[in-house]
C-alpha cells in the first residue's frame, strides 16, 4: 500500500504517544501535527510547578524532537473543518490526509456564577492560563479554589509554597470525590487541615465580588464570604468536540470511539481528553477518562490502528495517582463495591489506607493512600482480569507483587504474557509495518 498521509490535531500526551507509536511501526509515512498553541509540546501536569516557580522549562521533549520524529509541526493554527480526505485550518490551509487523529483535549468547565469574568478568576488548563495566573499573583495573599479535584490539590501545593492563605469550595461531600472513596479522601482532607487550608464541603460559590475591577472575595450559598485576591476554577473539564461535531463525527459528551479509537467517520480517530471510549470494567459503558495515563494509552492505540494494525484496546481503565501535600494517593478502577456480590477488603493503620474491590472472582478496583508501592502490580492484575481463585495461594491481604502473579501467568498464558509490559495492548512480537 502506498504511504498513508497522517494528520494529528493536538500536541500533548495523546498526540505524542500516537506519533511515537506510528514511528515505531513506520519510519517514513508523512505526519503533520497541528496545534492551536504557539509553543512545542509541554507538560500540563507541570503547570502548577510553573506557578510556584519550581519549574521554568515545561518541555515534554527535546528541541529537535519533531525533526527527529520526521513530523511537520504547525504551531498556532487551529483546525476548523474536517472534509473528505482533508482537514482545513483557520488560515485556509488544506491538509490532504488518509488518516486523521483528533486529539483536541479539553477545556476547564466554567461555572455559571455572578462575576465569573472578573479579572483575577482563572482556569488552569494551559500555558496561557498559567502565565496569566503568575502575572496576577504578585501581592496576592488570599486564594480561593472552586472544585476539589486533582488540579485543585496541585494548585493548593503551589499556593502554599507561595505563602498564600487557601480556601477550597467543593460542592460534593469531600475532596477528590471522583477519584477516591470517603475514607481515602478523609485522610487527604485531614492533611490539608493540618496545613492550614480551609475546606468547605457541600458548598457552592454563588457570587464573585469585585472591587476596583479586581476580585475581592467569593460568596457561598451558605452566606460565607471568603477573601480572595485570586480565584482558580477547578471544577472539572469538558471535552473539546467542536471540530468533531462540525465534521459530522458522532459525539456524546466526548467524541465516541470504538476499542480501536475509530470515530464514526472512516479514517478519523480520536484519543485523549476529547474521546469517549469503551470502559474496561463496565460492559457497554463509554467514558471520558481525562487522565494523563489514558491519553498516553489511547494515543498509542490510535497510532497503531491508524496504520491498520488492528490492535484493540481492552478499554479505558480509570486510574490515577498523585501526591497530596506529601501523601501519596492512588485509585485504580472501581473504588466502591459495584453490587452486593462484591467483596471489599480494607486495611487502615497509621495513616496508610488500602482497599481492594473484588467482584466475581476478579480484582476490579483499589484505593491506596500513604503507600502506593503496589499500584503498578495491582493495575496490571486488574487489567489482565485474572481469576483470583486460579492464582495459587493468592492472598489479597498481603502486598500484591508481580513475581507472584508471574508464577500464574508464566504457566498459563504463555505468549500473551508479553502484554504485561505493553500496557493492556496485546501485540504480536513480529508486528512491523
Amino acid at each position, binding site marked *: 500500500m502506498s504511504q498513508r498521509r497522517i494528520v494529528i490535531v493536538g500536541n500533548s500526551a495523546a498526540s505524542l504517544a500516537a506519533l511515537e507509536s506510528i514511528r515505531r511501526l513506520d519510519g517514513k509515512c508523512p505526519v503533520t501535527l497541528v496545534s492551536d498553541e504557539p509553543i512545542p509540546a509541554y507538560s500540563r501536569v507541570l503547570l502548577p510547578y510553573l506557578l510556584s516557580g519550581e519549574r521554568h522549562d515545561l518541555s515534554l521533549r527535546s528541541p529537535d524532537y519533531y525533526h527527529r520524529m520526521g513530523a511537520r509541526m504547525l504551531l498556532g493554527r487551529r483546525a476548523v473543518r474536517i472534509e473528505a480526505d482533508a482537514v482545513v485550518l483557520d488560515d485556509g490551509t488544506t491538509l490532504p490526509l488518509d488518516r486523521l487523529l483528533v486529539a483536541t483535549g479539553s477545556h476547564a468547565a466554567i461555572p455559571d456564577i455572578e462575576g465569573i469574568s472578573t479579572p483575577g478568576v482563572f482556569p488552569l488548563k494551559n500555558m496561557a492560563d498559567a502565565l496569566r495566573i503568575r502575572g496576577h499573583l504578585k501581592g496576592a495573599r488570599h486564594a480561593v479554589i472552586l472544585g476539589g479535584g486533582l488540579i485543585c490539590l496541585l494548585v493548593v501545593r503551589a499556593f502554599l509554597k507561595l505563602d498564600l492563605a487557601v480556601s477550597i469550595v467543593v460542592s460534593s461531600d469531600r475532596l477528590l470525590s471522583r477519584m477516591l472513596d470517603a475514607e481515602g479522601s478523609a485522610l487527604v482532607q485531614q492533611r490539608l487541615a493540618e496545613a492550614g487550608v480551609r475546606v468547605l464541603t457541600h458548598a457552592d460559590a454563588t457570587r464573585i465580588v469585585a472591587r476596583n475591577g479586581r476580585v475581592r472575595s467569593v460568596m457561598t450559598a451558605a452566606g460565607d464570604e471568603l477573601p480572595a485576591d485570586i480565584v482558580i476554577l477547578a471544577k472539572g473539564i469538558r471535552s473539546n468536540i467542536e471540530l468533531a461535531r462540525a465534521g459530522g463525527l458522532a459525539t456524546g459528551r466526548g467524541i465516541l470511539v470504538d476499542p480501536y479509537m475509530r470515530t464514526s467517520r472512516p479514517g478519523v480517530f480520536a484519543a485523549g481528553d476529547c474521546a469517549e471510549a469503551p470502559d474496561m470494567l463496565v460492559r457497554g459503558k463509554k467514558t471520558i477518562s481525562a487522565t494523563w495515563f489514558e491519553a498516553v494509552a489511547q494515543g498509542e492505540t490510535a497510532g497503531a490502528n491508524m496504520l491498520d494494525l488492528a490492535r484493540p484496546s481492552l478499554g479505558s481503565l480509570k486510574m490515577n495517582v498523585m501526591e497530596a501535600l506529601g501523601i501519596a494517593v492512588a485509585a485504580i478502577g472501581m473504588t466502591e463495591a459495584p453490587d452486593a456480590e462484591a467483596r471489599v477488603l480494607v486495611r487502615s493503620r497509621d495513616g496508610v489506607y488500602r482497599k481492594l474491590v473484588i467482584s466475581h472472582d476478579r480484582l476490579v478496583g483499589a484505593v491506596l493512600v500513604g503507600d502506593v508501592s503496589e499500584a503498578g*502490580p495491582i493495575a496490571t492484575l486488574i487489567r489482565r482480569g485474572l481469576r483470583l481463585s486460579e492464582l495459587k495461594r493468592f492472598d489479597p491481604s498481603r502486598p500484591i507483587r508481580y*513475581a507472584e502473579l508471574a508464577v500464574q501467568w508464566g504457566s498459563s498464558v504463555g505468549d500473551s504474557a508479553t502484554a504485561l*509490559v505493553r500496557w493492556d495492548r496485546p501485540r504480536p512480537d513480529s508486528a512491523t509495518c
Partner: protein
Amino acid sequence: MSRMIVADMTKCTNCRMCEMACSLATTGAFAPTRSRIRVHVFAEHFKHVPVTCFQCADAPCVKVCPAGALLQGEGLVRFVKEACIGCRMCMLACPFGVISFESEARVIAKCDTCSGDPECVRFCAYGALEFRESELAAAPKGRDFARRVAEAAKG
C-alpha cells in the same frame, strides 16, 4: 546488544546481600527497604526471586512520565532526579513494581545498574545475579520473566 541484570531464581538463597549492597551503594546506608533490587519469597515453593528494573526497551514508565524525568536509553531506562516531581505516575505504570519512592528527597528511585557495574551482582555470592549481554535486553521482559518464575516454581 546491551547488558542487563539477569536473576537465576534456582540459585538465589534469600541471603539478601544484594539488597544490602544496593542500599549501601545508592543511599549510603544498609537499608534493605530502600534497595532497588528486592528479593521476593515464595514460601510455598521454597523459591526466592530477586526483582529489579528490567530496563524495558519500550518502557511504560518513560511513556507516562509527565516531567521528563525518565528517558529511554540504550539498554537502560535513565532517571533524571532533578526533573522528578514525585508524582508517582511511573509507579502506577510499571507492572513490575520496581520503582520505589525516596521519602526524604520526595523523588522516585530505580535501578541504574550502578552505571554499568552493579553492586548487587558483585556481592552475590551464589552466582544468582549476573550482569550480561542478553538478547532479551531489547525484548519484552514480562514473558521471559513470567516463564522463568513459573519454571522455577515448578522445579
